[in-house]
C-alpha cells in the first residue's frame, strides 16, 4: 500500500514538475502516447518546422486514464487513448476537453474512420477524439510448432499445453466470446446478457488456465517468450506479429477465424492542456502522408491518414495482405464505445479467472 | 602411594598451547590436591587465562594431557567436563531469574523439577540469599551476583571450580569482603578452586597454594608465606609483595654468606651459592627495614631500639614523604646515591614519634632479609 501511495505521490509530483516546467518554456508539447507513435525523426522534423519541443511519455489505455484521473486532466497536453475508452472515461472523470474540429485538417484523414471515431467519442454532443493509428488484435503463431491454431479457443487445445500466452484483460474476454459463438458487442448495453456471456467465457478461461504459460502484460515480455519458443501461440497485436515475422518467418500474425478485433487509437486533449495550439499543430503534422508513413514504420500499424499507405514499405503491405485476405478485413470486429460500468463486470470476471487454481 | 594419588583433583602433564607465534602455555606440569584453594597469579598475557580455558574445555592444548580425578578429559567437550567456571564478568543469564540461573545446570542433567527446586533453595540458603530466588539478575548488587555465579556452579558439585578473576569488576571495599567470603565458601563446600588473578593480594589472602605464572611457565608453586618469604626467582620476589630492588655484583663470599657491591654501598646477605663477580638483583621487603632515629633519644628509646645495632646492613636516609594508610602506612625515603626512593614500613611500635619529610633516619635490616637472585637469568621486575 505504501508503494501505491508512493506511486500516487510520484504521479502528483511529476505532474507538478511538468506543470511548472511548461510555464518555463511555453512551447513544449507534453504527449502521453503509446510506444512507436512518436518516433524521434518525426519529433525532430516537427521541432524544425514549428519550434515546439515534444516531450513523450509512453503508456497504455489504463495508464493514460489513471494519470489524467489523478491530476483531473492536467500534466499532459495531448493523449492517445483508444476510441472506445474515451466516452466512458469522460463521463466518469471529466478529464478531456472537446476537440475544436475547425482546427483539424480533415482532408488528411480517411473520411469513414474520422466519422466513426467522431460518433464513438461523443459525449453530451461534443467530440473528444480524432483517429490516428489503427490495428487489430488476433493471434501470433509459430506456424511450424503450432500449425493448427486458427482461433482464440484453439489456444486451449492439448497440443499447445503450457506453450500459450494471452493478456488477462478485456480484449481476451471479447475475443474468446466471439470464438465461442457469442456477440459481446451486441450485448454491450444489456448487462444481464453481457454477464451471461462473461460467465461462459470465465468458465472457458479457467479451464484453459493450465494451458497458459504466463499472462503477458508487456509487449516486450511476450516477444521474448515467443522468440525463445517458450510460447508458440499467443493472443497479441498484429504489429508485434509482423515484427517477429521479420526475425523468424515461421512466426506471424493471423486473423482468427471468428474475426480480429479492430481498435483505433485517437488523439484527445486533456481538460487542463496548456499547449492546445501545439497539440492541433502536432495532429495536423503527423497526419501528413509522409509523416504518417514514418509512424507506421515505427509502430508497425497503419494510420488514419489518407494516402498514408502509399509511403509504407512493400514488406509491411505484404505482411498485412498475408494476414488479412479480403474476407478477413470485412470480418474485423471494431470496438464500440464501452458503456460505463461494463468494465467493473469484466474486472470481476478477470479477478475470478486469476484466482482460480 | 595409592592414597596420595587419590588426593589429586587435577593434574596437568606437559601442557602446551600457542597462538601463531605466541606461546601462551609452555610445557606446564602440575598437580592440585583435592579440596584446596589453588591460585594462579601472573601479569596479563602470562597465559593464565589460556590455561584456565583449556581446563574448562574452551581451548584445546597443542600437546600434553589434562587429568581430572585421574581421567584424561581432553576428549570431553566443555558441557560434559566435571568442571565449572565463574567468568570474569560472571555471565549470569540476564533473561532468567536467580533461581532459573541456578537451576540451569540441573535442568541440563534432566533432573525433575521436584528435585531441582529443593536443591536450588538449599543453595540459596547456603549463600545467605534465601529470598532472592525470584529476583531478576539486574536487581542484585555486585556481591550478590558474585555469590549467585558461584552458587550456579557449585550446585552441580563439580570436581573443580574455575574462577577467572571474578573480583576484578568490584570496587575495593567489596573486593576485600569478597576475598574473605570466597575463602569461607571454599572451606564450606570443600570444592577444589582454581583461581586466576593478577592481583597478588587476592592470591595471598585466599589460597592454600599459589602458582606464579610468567610467560607461559610457573615460576614457583608454594604456599603464600613461602612465596613471600622465600621467592624462588627474582620475578616472584618482585611480583609478590612490595620490595626495594637494588642491582649489584658479588664482591666477597664466605661461609656465612656474601657481600654485594651496590650503588648504596656494600650489602650483606646470607646466601652463599653465588660466585664473586656475578651480577645480582637484591630485594628487601619494606617491613624488613627498621628505623633508628637520628635525633637525640631518651634512654627508653635507646633501649627499645638498641637491637638495630646488631643488624648487618646499616644506612642513612632522608624521609621524603609519609604515606599514612592505617595499618599499611609507608615511609618514602631517599638516599643520595639512589635514583629510586626506598619504601619502608611505618614503624607502628614507635607511633608516638612523629615522622616528617626532610628528617634524617638510620635504617637497617638483617642479612637474612636480603633476597638475592642471579641477574644473569634476568627476569626484570618492577
Amino acid at each position: 500500500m505504501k508503494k501505491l501511495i508512493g506511486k500516487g505521490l510520484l504521479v502528483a509530483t511529476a505532474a507538478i514538475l511538468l506543470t511548472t516546467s511548461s510555464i518555463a518554456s511555453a512551447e513544449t508539447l507534453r504527449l502521453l502516447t503509446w510506444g512507436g507513435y512518436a518516433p524521434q525523426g518525426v519529433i525532430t522534423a516537427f521541432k524544425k518546422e514549428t519550434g515546439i519541443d515534444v516531450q513523450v511519455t509512453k503508456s497504455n489505455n489504463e495508464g493514460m486514464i489513471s494519470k489524467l484521473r489523478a491530476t483531473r486532466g492536467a500534466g499532459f497536453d495531448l493523449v492517445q487513448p483508444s476510441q472506445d475508452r474515451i466516452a466512458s472515461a469522460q463521463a466518469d472523470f471529466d478529464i478531456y476537453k472537446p476537440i475544436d474540429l475547425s482546427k483539424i485538417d480533415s482532408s488528411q484523414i480517411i473520411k469513414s474512420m474520422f466519422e466513426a471515431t467522431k460518433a464513438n467519442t461523443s459525449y453530451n454532443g461534443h467530440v473528444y477524439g480524432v483517429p490516428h493509428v489503427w490495428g487489430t488484435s488476433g493471434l501470433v503463431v509459430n506456424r511450424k510448432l503450432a500449425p493448427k491454431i486458427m482461433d482464440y479457443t484453439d489456444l486451449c487445445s492439448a497440443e499447445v499445453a503450457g506453450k500459450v500466452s494471452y493478456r488477462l484483460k478485456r480484449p481476451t474476454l471479447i475475443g474468446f466470446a466471439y470464438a465461442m459463438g457469442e456477440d459481446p458487442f451486441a450485448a454491450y448495453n444489456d448487462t444481464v446478457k453481457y454477464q451471461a456471456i462473461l460467465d461462459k467465457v470465465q468458465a472457458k478461461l479457467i479451464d484453459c488456465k493450465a494451458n497458459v504459460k504466463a499472462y503477458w502484460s508487456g509487449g516486450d515480455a511476450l516477444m521474448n517468450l515467443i522468440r525463445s519458443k517458450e510460447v508458440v501461440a499467443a493472443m497479441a497485436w498484429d504489429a508485434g506479429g509482423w515484427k517477429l515475422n521479420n526475425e523468424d518467418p515461421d512466426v506471424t500474425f493471423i486473423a482468427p477465424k471468428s474475426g480480429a478485433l479492430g481498435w483505433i487509437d485517437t488523439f484527445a486533449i486533456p481538460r487542463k492542456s496548456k499547449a492546445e495550439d501545439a497539440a492541433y499543430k502536432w495532429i495536423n503534422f503527423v497526419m501528413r502522408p509522409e509523416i504518417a508513413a514514418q509512424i507506421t514504420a515505427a509502430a508497425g500499424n497503419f494510420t488514419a491518414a489518407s494516402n498514408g499507405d502509399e509511403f509504407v514499405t512493400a514488406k509491411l503491405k505484404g505482411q498485412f495482405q498475408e494476414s488479412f485476405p479480403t474476407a478477413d478485413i470485412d470480418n474485423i470486429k471494431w470496438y464500440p464505445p464501452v458503456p460505463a460500468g461494463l468494465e467493473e463486470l469484466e474486472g470481476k470476471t478477470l479477478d475470478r479467472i486469476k484466482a482460480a487454481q | 602411594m595409592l592414597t596420595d594419588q587419590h588426593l589429586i583433583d587435577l593434574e596437568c602433564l606437559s601442557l602446551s598451547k600457542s597462538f601463531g607465534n605466541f606461546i601462551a602455555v609452555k610445557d606446564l606440569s602440575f598437580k592440585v590436591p583435592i579440596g584446596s584453594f589453588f591460585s594462579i597469579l601472573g601479569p596479563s598475557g602470562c597465559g593464565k587465562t589460556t590455561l584456565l580455558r583449556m581446563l574448562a574445555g574452551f581451548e584445546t592444548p597443542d600437546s600434553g594431557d589434562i587429568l581430572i580425578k585421574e581421567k584424561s578429559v581432553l576428549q570431553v567437550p566443555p558441557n560434559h567436563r566435571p568442571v565449572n567456571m565463574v567468568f570474569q564478568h560472571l555471565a549470569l543469564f540476564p533473561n532468567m531469574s536467580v533461581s532459573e540461573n541456578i537451576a540451569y545446570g540441573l535442568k541440563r542433567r534432566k533432573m525433575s523439577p521436584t528435585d531441582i527446586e529443593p536443591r536450588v533453595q538449599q543453595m540459596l540458603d547456603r549463600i545467605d540469599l534465601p529470598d532472592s530466588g525470584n529476583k531478576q539478575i539486574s536487581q542484585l548488587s555486585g556481591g550478590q551476583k558474585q555469590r549467585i555465579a558461584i552458587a550456579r556452579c557449585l550446585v552441580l558439585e563439580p570436581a573443580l571450580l574455575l574462577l577467572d578473576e571474578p573480583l576484578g569488576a568490584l570496587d575495593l571495599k567489596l573486593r576485600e569482603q569478597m576475598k574473605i567470603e570466597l575463602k569461607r565458601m571454599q572451606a564450606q563446600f570443600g570444592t577444589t578452586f582454581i583461581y586466576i588473578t593478577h592481583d597478588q593480594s587476592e592470591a595471598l589472602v585466599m589460597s592454600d597454594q599459589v602458582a606464579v605464572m610468567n610467560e607461559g611457565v610457573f615460576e614457583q608453586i608454594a604456599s603464600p608465606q613461602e612465596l613471600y618469604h622465600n621467592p624462588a626467582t627474582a620475578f616472584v620476589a618482585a611480583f609478590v609483595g612490595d620490595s626495594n630492588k637494588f642491582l649489584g655484583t658479588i664482591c666477597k663470599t664466605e661461609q656465612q654468606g656474601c657481600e654485594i657491591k651496590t650503588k648504596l654501598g656494600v650489602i650483606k646477605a646470607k646466601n652463599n651459592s653465588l660466585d664473586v663477580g656475578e651480577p645480582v638483583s637484591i630485594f628487601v621487603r619494606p617491613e624488613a627495614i627498621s628505623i633508628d632515629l637520628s635525633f637525640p633519644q631518651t634512654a627508653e628509646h635507646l633501649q627499645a631500639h638498641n637491637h638495630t645495632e646488631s643488624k648487618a646492613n646499616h644506612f642513612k636516609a632522608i624521609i621524603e614523604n609519609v604515606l599514612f594508610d592505617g595499618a599499611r602506612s609507608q615511609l618514602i625515603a631517599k638516599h643520595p646515591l639512589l635514583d629510586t626512593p626506598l619504601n619502608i614500613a611505618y614503624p607502628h611500635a614507635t607511633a608516638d614519634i612523629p615522622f616528617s619529610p626532610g628528617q634524617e633516619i638510620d635504617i637497617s635490616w638483617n642479612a637474612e632479609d636480603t633476597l638475592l637472585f642471579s641477574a644473569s637469568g634476568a627476569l626484570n621486575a618492577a
Partner: protein
Amino acid sequence: MQPDKNKLALFLLLTPLLVWLLLLIVIPHLDMMLISLQERVAAREYRTSFSNYIEFFSEPLYINTFIRTAVMSILATLLTLLIAFPVSYYIAKMMKGQSKQILFLLCLIPFWVSELVRTYGWMILLRESGVISSLLQSLSLVNGPIEMLYNDVAIMVGLIYGSMLFMIVPLVTTLDSLDDSLIEAGYDLGGSHWNVLREVIIPHATPGITSGCIVVFMLSLGNYLTPVLLGGKDSLWFTEQIYTQFITRFNWEQGAALGMLLLLLSSLIVWLGLKLSGQSFRKVMS
C-alpha cells in the same frame, strides 16, 4: 524568556519533520480513507458508504487473496529467519575484524541494484530457457527443459532473497552485543548446542528477531514486483489487487478501501504475532 526560546528552537527543529509526516503520511492516508468511503452511484456521482469495505468481506476473492498473501508472507518471514539466523551468527560470532565487515558488505551488495533488476535476475535463472534449466540439461540430469518460474516456490525464493538483508542487519546487531562468555557459560554448565541456542542465544536475540520479522513481513506483504513477475498467472497477491483497482479498473474507491484494510489487517497480524511471542512493541524498539 529562556524556556520560551528553547521551545521556539525545538519547534523550529521539529517543523520539517512534522511537515514531512503530515504531507507524506497523514494527509495521503486521510485522503485514502475518505476516498475509500465513497461509492459510485452514477457517472460523476458519489455517496458516502461502507460498500467498498462490505465488498471486501462479501467477495471471497479478496479475502482469499488476502489470506494467501498473509500466509505466504508469514512463511517467507519464517524461512528468511531460518536462513538468516545461522548466517548472522556466523558473521557476528565466528568472524572477527575485517572479514566480518567484508561478509557484512557482501550481504549488502545485491541491494545496490533495484528490486526490478534483482527480480529479472531470478527470471533469467529460473525460466524454461534459463540458466538453471540449460545447465541441468547439459549435465543430462533432466530430459527437456523444465519450467521453474511462475509458481509459489519462485515467489517464495524471490521474497526471501529480497528481504534477507532486512533480517540479517538486526540479527547481526543483536548477536554482536551478546557476550561470548554467556554462550560459554551455557556450555560450561552442561548445555548442549540446542540448550545454549534456546536458553541463551535466542532470548538475547529476541528483539532483533522480532524487529527483523516485522520488517520482512511488512515488506513481503507490501511487495508487488516479486509476486507479479515470478508468480505469473497464479501470483494472486493482495497489493496486485490494489494496483489493479487503482490503475486498470479506475476504481480508486475499492482500491483505497483495500489499501486501508491491508494497513489495518497487517497491523493486526503484527500485533497478534507480538502477543503470541510475548513481546511488546516498546521492547522491540528499545
